[in-house]
């Protein structure tokens, strides 16, 4: 019988402090902000009149991606002022997701609840703020009492709308990102441990060690899959932010 014991989860996702109160999540978050600032700083320094290449090309592609794929699709022409915020959100989340597959770091900072939580709280504050700013108390009315519903149904609809708009939204936003990244990380840990255990097992079953290729292959496949997941989760978080802001701004649809 062969038994692989999984380490307790806090050993998988919590790391020793570098110094007091500063751990790997802090490192990754600071690195992400630093890399983002550096990229956009270098991009801004370059001559804007020649065809963009290198860092500037990356930055401009990001800006155009946010403008065309997110802002124009969800808020519309009048939401272009939100581009810098959404761009920051996207770049920060993506750079925090990416360490999940980078050797040595090997951990997505968004797999801890702290980052998704504060970002979804910020998003919650922003979309409610936008709603109150544009419609005043009419925002509450349009979000709690959607038009076109029979009067008696408001007894049922209003509590549901309240819960879904003001409570479930930020939590689902945070938990989606957090759980996706954590699940991806756990999968990678599982297959890495399995490969390790199979390769170094002290066993008389000679077929076991060559079979290590299977979990290693799975590990490589999952690593490439995590690249996609990291991008997709950053995109989904950002586009949902856009959707919420757009709904607060134009509640008619």
């Amino acid at each position, binding site marked *: 019988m062969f038994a692989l014991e*999984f380490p*307790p*989860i806090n050993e998988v996702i919590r790391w020793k402090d570098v110094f007091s109160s500063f751990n790997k999540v802090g490192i990754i978050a600071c690195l992400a902000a630093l890399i983002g600032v550096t990229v956009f700083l270098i991009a801004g320094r370059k001559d804007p009149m020649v065809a963009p290449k290198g860092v500037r090309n990356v930055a401009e592609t990001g800006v155009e991606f946010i403008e065309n*794929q997110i802002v124009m*699709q969800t808020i519309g022409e009048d939401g272009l002022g939100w581009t810098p915020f959404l761009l920051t959100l996207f770049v920060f989340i993506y750079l925090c997701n990416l360490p999940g597959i980078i050797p040595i770091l090997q951990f997505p900072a968004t797999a801890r609840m702290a980052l998704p939580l504060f970002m979804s709280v910020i998003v919650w504050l922003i979309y409610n703020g936008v709603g109150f700013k544009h419609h005043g108390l009419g925002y509450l009315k349009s979000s709690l009492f959607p038009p076109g519903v029979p009067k008696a149904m408001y007894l049922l609809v209003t509590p549901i709308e309240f819960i879904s708009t003001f409570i479930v939204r930020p939590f*689902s936003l945070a*938990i*989606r990102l*957090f*759980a*996706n990244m*954590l*699940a991806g990380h756990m999968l990678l840990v599982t297959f890495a441990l399995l490969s390790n255990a199979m390769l170094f097992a002290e066993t008389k079953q000679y077929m076991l060690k060559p079979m290590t290729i299977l979990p290693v292959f799975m590990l490589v496949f999952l690593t490439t899959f995590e690249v996609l997941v990291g991008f*997709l989760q950053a*995109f*989904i978080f950002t*586009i*949902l932010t856009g*959707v919420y802001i757009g709904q607060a701004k134009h509640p008619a649809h």
Partner: protein
Amino acid sequence: MEALSRVLAQATELTASDLKKNNAAIGAGFAYGLAAIGPGVGIGYVVGKAIESMARQPESAGMVRTTMFLGIAFTEALALIGFVVFILLGL
């Protein structure tokens, strides 16, 4: 489930805390497994319909793809809540 763990306890002579732990582990397994059924069906349906509409109207593929990801994100949330419960209970 309880019967199962009781049988397990009798077979291996576990203490009360072990029993609780085993219950939690079994519950966690069921939580994630059950939570994955609905979203699995739902995501399959969303993606299938999206592919169908992309095949019918390739010129609107970009819009359909964006909406498809949104739909997947909403559907997937349920499975992820199941995963969180799994972690809370089991590990």
